[in-house]
């Protein structure tokens, strides 16, 4: 198909439909309303389910129902609404049900504002809901990646029977860039979900429960989940490496800040001849720790750049494990840093 100019919010919706998603439930919240509006316009026309729910709680639990019945299901929201969905994320993990949750982050805590921010990193990667679980988190860095990563999110969700979060911010939701969509997937052609509950239909009855009162069985369930998370870590860790071959200093940034950092890095390399590079985590959990650890053999300075007061930087520190120095620069609260600002910070790091 042809390239078209599309916003991040519309792209996530269109990509989900093309990836075979046939159930969307959501509640309005800025800056991701265009996603739900796109679903409202298109989902029912192709025989899918669309409901504007009474709350984010209801939306994620409708996702639970649709996913349990074996349908690719999605919900989307922005930070305060994602907080309300955490209970559902925990249950989806406990039930081992696949689903895709889109978080178009905004400033916080509390109501915060509607400007882009990256303050939900901890919530997204550390669980957010209760219990011993992990959520794969994918952070696209362009509109094309939003399309591709939406497909990937559904695939990972189905393959490992887990909720997957697509984490972007208000800027990624709103910018328009050219996108070429992958072809439509007919949901009928997806691998059959033998575990899905669709009535007994002449067979033995089955049930999905996350209540496991017997502690021995609960422990076993936790270890089974853990094994799954180990497999996801081994197979699904993704990152982009940008000019790291000759770098003296490596920036670590994801999503919007990675884009802005690339602008700064280009400026510093071209205009000032500084050897700086970037590792852009595409999966935030699992975090690309190995590549950082490997690079730290030669590179002694890393800078985490975030639109927060410092969240991902903790994963960078854990990954480097003391092998190199970790610096941090952040702009929280909905401020979008500028390339020139980042260039300044990186230059200082190189020269200090």
């Amino acid at each position, binding site marked *: 198909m042809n390239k078209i100019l599309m916003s991040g919010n519309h792209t996530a919706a269109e990509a989900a439909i093309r990836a075979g998603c046939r159930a969307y439930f959501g509640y309005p919240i800025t800056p991701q309303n265009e996603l739900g509006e796109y679903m409202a316009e298109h989902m029912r026309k192709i025989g899918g389910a669309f409901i504007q729910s009474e709350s984010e709680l209801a939306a994620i639990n409708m996702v639970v129902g649709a996913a349990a019945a074996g349908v690719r299901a999605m919900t989307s929201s922005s930070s305060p609404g994602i907080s309300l969905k955490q209970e559902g994320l925990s249950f989806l993990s406990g039930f081992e049900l696949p689903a895709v949750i889109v978080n178009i982050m905004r400033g916080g805590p509390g109501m915060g504002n509607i400007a882009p921010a990256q303050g939900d990193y901890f919530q997204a990667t550390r669980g957010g809901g209760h219990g011993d679980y992990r959520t794969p988190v994918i952070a696209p860095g362009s509109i094309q990646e939003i399309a591709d990563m939406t497909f990937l999110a559904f695939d990972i969700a189905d393959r490992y029977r887990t909720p997957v979060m697509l984490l972007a911010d208000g800027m990624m939701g709103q*910018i328009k860039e*050219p996108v070429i969509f992958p072809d439509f997937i007919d949901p009928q052609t997806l691998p059959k979900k033998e575990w899905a509950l669709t009535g007994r239909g002449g067979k033995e009855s089955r049930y999905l429960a996350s209540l496991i009162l017997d502690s021995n069985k609960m422990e076993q369930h936790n270890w089974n989940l853990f094994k799954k998370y180990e497999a996801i870590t081994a197979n699904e860790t993704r990152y982009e490496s940008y000019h790291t071959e000759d770098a003296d200093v490596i920036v670590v940034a994801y999503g919007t800040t990675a884009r*802005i*950092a*690339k*602008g700064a890095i280009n400026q510093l390399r071209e205009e000032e001849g500084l050897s700086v590079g970037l590792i852009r985590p595409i999966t935030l959990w699992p975090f690309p720790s190995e590549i950082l650890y490997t690079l730290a053999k030669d590179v002694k300075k890393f800078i985490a750049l975030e639109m927060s007061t410092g969240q991902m930087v903790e994963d960078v520190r854990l990954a480097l494990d003391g092998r190199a120095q970790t610096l941090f620069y952040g702009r929280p609260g909905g401020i979008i840093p500028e390339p*020139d600002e980042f260039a300044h910070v990186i230059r200082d790091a190189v020269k200090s």
Partner: protein
Amino acid sequence: MLKTILCSGSGGQGTLTMGNVLANAAMQEGFFVSYLPCYGAAMRGGTAHCTTSISSEEIASPVVSFPDVLIALNKPSVTAFLPRMRPGSTLIYNEDLISDVPAKENVRIYPIAANQLARDAANERSANMVMLAAMVKVTSLLSLEALQRSAQDLMGSKKSLFAMTLNALQAGYADIV
């Protein structure tokens, strides 16, 4: 090649449409593009601006510190963004709504009677398209036809709007000699 164009005006002047038509045109011409609208409480009468980046290579940052071109539709836009204009950059402003633009060293400045031209060619509300066409002529960034094709793509289904847009683009392009 990387050109960054900041369009700024008040809500309802078609500022975001300008950037959108531009980005779409550049994409159709084979460039890499990124279009970043300001968003939020933007509404008629408020301020609105957007940044369009056009490049022959993949675009790093959609956020731009120093635009190559500023298209200003109202006075507050000049006040807000002129300080970001670096030597070698270009300011195109709507002289029907903006007076007393301070001179700035090595910034090329083009006043356009956008409201008047739009009124004569189509409708005053098409002043944004007049400005956009004048900009591509000044910068040699794209052809008039590229803008017209993009407009058709985005507004072709609304016949009267599209006709006015074509006339306004023509008028803006012809105004620069």
